[in-house]
């Protein structure tokens, strides 16, 4: 557990440097050119939470706004990547058999209502996830053999089998610590331990946080944070240009030039995978040759160029996650080969329908229409609202009613979806699915990280070779930050946006 300790020391050092800077301008913090304690930070976003109930509502926008800011878990994801770092647990040990995790909770932590946080709260939170199937990420703890709190500041979790992904999974909603006794309506209010408290939320508009003055750790650098949600990219960029927004973590690369004069533009890596999924449960996409032909028809370089900020991806694991390998060799851009594959499959005058949510815009469908036309496949684009996509494509009972779909799957380390026979893009070949499931299970049970990553890479290759989907690209965040704003996160911001370390000069 050396790394977490080192991380801790580093935060202290940074915090000390930060407070030095603050004392240098002790006069109310209003000296121009130095961070102002009373400053507010306005973050412009598009995707907003549907409601704030972190226990029952899933979605990246909710985790992005609340985890690390309002709620904290035993462990967290590092601000510059997806490594696991301490949060409410200041340290932990893992037993040699990788079955028992012992977490040591930080001292002096209290909830926003003032009540102290103890191991009883952590125990209750984890037990709820384990016992209640309606709670988000129930699967993370469902099979845990035992969860207990031997004393006020210790929590132990014993697994029934080693799980390489377990600690990382605890950085999600499953590992959050909420008060054991609490009647807060979590849909609209919050009672966490984080550096910010929830001030107000107006759906369709904005979510405001204010600094938690009694925070157990280093207090937040700004007094107030507002997440302002915009209707579309054009509105978001207008907000930046008229000066009402300080930072935008997800700008359309095409529009970023409009901001480049006044904002610092940073590109950052994400685990956002744009997946063109095939419904391989029904003809003609149940034929692997047809699926491979479609993948070979796609010119990924052209897509990367059109998108502007993206990395190539040819299999289910993105570069930030363990097990990533460059699988470009599996499907080179090869329209001639694609036409041959279609002929072999005996498919003529193929016409397919792509179902895509309207918030992705027309660019990707347009590129695919022309790519497929080149191999004699007509693509009809069916643009729908996201709610419609959920019921028409994602709902398992409609498995046979869709053909192609594009969705941005943002969650890191979500390989397990490829092992789920009921998921919308499931693998419908018993032998392949079993092989993938076995390899994934082995990877999770493997104690050695590198060996586990190798097994994951093998599983990923099996998936990629069965062509259940085409991975169009990994999105890169184009982050625009106004002058005077420092410490804004620059990695995986679509799922985590911890803002306690941000300072603003005024």
């Amino acid at each position, binding site marked *: 557990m050396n790394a977490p300790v080192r991380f801790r020391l580093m935060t202290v050092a940074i915090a000390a440097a930060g407070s030095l800077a603050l004392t240098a301008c002790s006069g109310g913090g209003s000296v121009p050119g130095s961070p102002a304690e009373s400053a507010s930070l306005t973050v412009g976003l598009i995707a*907003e939470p*549907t*409601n*704030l*109930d972190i226990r*029952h*509502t*899933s*979605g990246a926008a909710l985790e992005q706004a609340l985890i690390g800011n309002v709620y904290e878990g035993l462990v967290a994801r590092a601000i510059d990547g997806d490594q696991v770092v301490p949060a409410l647990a200041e340290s932990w040990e893992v037993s040699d058999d990788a079955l028992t995790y012992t977490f040591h909770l930080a001292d002096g932590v209290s909830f926003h209502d003032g009540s102290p946080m103890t191991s009883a709260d952590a125990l209750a939170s984890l037990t709820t996830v384990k016992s209640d*199937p*309606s709670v*988000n*990420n129930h699967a993370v703890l469902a099979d845990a053999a035992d969860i207990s709190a031997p004393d006020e500041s210790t929590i132990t979790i014993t697994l029934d089998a080693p799980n390489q992904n377990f600690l990382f999974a605890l950085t999600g909603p499953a590992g959050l610590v909420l008060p054991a006794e609490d009647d807060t*309506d979590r*849909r*609209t209010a919050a009672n966490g331990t984080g550096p910010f408290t929830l001030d107000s939320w*107006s*759906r*369709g*508009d*904005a979510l*405001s946080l204010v600094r938690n003055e009694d925070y157990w750790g280093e207090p937040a650098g700004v007094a107030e944070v*507002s997440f*302002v949600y*915009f*209707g*579309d990219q*054009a*509105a978001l960029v*207008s*907000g930046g*240009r*008229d000066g*009402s*927004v300080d930072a935008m973590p997800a700008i359309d690369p095409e529009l970023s030039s409009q901001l480049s004069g006044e904002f610092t533009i940073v590109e950052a890596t994400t685990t956002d995978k744009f997946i063109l999924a095939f419904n391989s449960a029904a003809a003609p996409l149940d034929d692997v040759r047809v699926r491979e032909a479609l993948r070979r028809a796609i010119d990924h370089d052209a897509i990367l160029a059109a998108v502007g900020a993206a990395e190539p991806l040819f299999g289910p694991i993105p570069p930030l996650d363990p097990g990533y390998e460059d699988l470009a060799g599996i499907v080179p851009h090869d329209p001639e080969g694609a036409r041959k594959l279609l002929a072999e499959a005996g498919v003529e005058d193929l016409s397919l329908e792509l179902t895509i949510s309207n918030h992705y815009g027309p660019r990707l469908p347009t590129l695919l229409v022309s790519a497929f036309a080149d191999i004699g496949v007509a693509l009809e684009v069916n643009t*729908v*609202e*996201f*709610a*419609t*996509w*959920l*019921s*028409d494509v*994602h*709902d*398992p*009972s409609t498995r046979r009613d869709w053909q192609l779909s594009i*969705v941005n*799957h943002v*969650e890191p380390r979500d390989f397990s979806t490829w092992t789920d026979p*009921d998921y919308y893009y499931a693998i419908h070949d018993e032998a392949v699915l079993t092989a993938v499931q076995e390899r994934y299970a082995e990877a999770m049970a493997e104690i050695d990280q590198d060996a586990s990553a190798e097994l994951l890479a093998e599983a990923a290759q099996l998936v990629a070779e069965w062509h259940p989907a085409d991975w169009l690209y990994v999105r890169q965040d184009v982050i625009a930050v106004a002058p005077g704003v420092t410490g804004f996160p620059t990695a995986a911001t679509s799922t985590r946006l911890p803002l306690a370390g941000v300072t603003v000069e005024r």
Partner: protein
Amino acid sequence: MPRYVLTRLTLLALGLLAASAIIFCTLRILPGDVAQTIVGTEGTPEQVAALRAELGLDRPVLLQYLAWIGGVLTGDLGESLLTGAPVAAELAEKARVTVPLGLLSLVVAIVIAVPFGVIAALRRNRVSGAALNALAQLLAAVPVLWAGMMLIVVFAIVLGWLPAQGFPRAGWGDPGAALRALILPALTIGVVEGALLLRFVRSATLTAIDADFVRTAAAKGHTRTGALLRHGLPAVGLSIITMLGVQIAGIVVGAVVIEQVFNLPGIGRMLVADVGARDLTKVQGELLALTGFVLIVGFLIDLVHRAIDPRQRDTAEVQS
């Protein structure tokens, strides 16, 4: 008169009831539901089913309708399926943006339409009149969305005079900033609606100019403009009021669109967000409130019309 009011009130109530049924049924045709939206891509079908039951979405549609309309009749618009917040309270909160926006837009529309409409009519045979008319025709054809974006580019981005986006966090606690935030959106709606109204004012004024009683007044020694202003316009005013009623529906629609463009936290933006999340109880409440507003404006205009137009009153009394 009381009998007329009673008849109109009955019609209004029937209209609202019909609207409620249409709104309710139309929304049920939409695919997807709020439970699916909440559970998202990471949840299981079992989670969706459990949530549907908890929210009462698995009950027969007729029962859902009766429960809703029963609540509405007792003044309860229900609660948001997503957040549990009372719909009426959220409507009242968002109305603090939408209502001032609508009123400002109306003022802009009237300020543009009435004087320039009359001028365009008086100068109908001159180049300036024709130009005004053509300009109005052009402006009336401009989509509100595009007009909004153009105004943002010119006044917010190039000139930097006014904010392009959003509403102050303090709301009307900071009246200056709140008003500034509404100027561009109100201009956008007001100019387009004003151009429509201008053409109507112009043609109504033209009718008045040619009317016998104006000509008589002119013959009695008034100037043509004087005769028009003193005798013609009061007669035309009535039809302008009627037209304003129609215009208010246009302003409501304009507000829904323009709140998106300017990121204003009003009823329109809330409506779009709620439809997207399939928060149907809230969408029902919002649509019913908007429909109710337009129907009630129509009702009031009828009453005003009748109160100030002696001819209508006479015919009605002859009929009754």
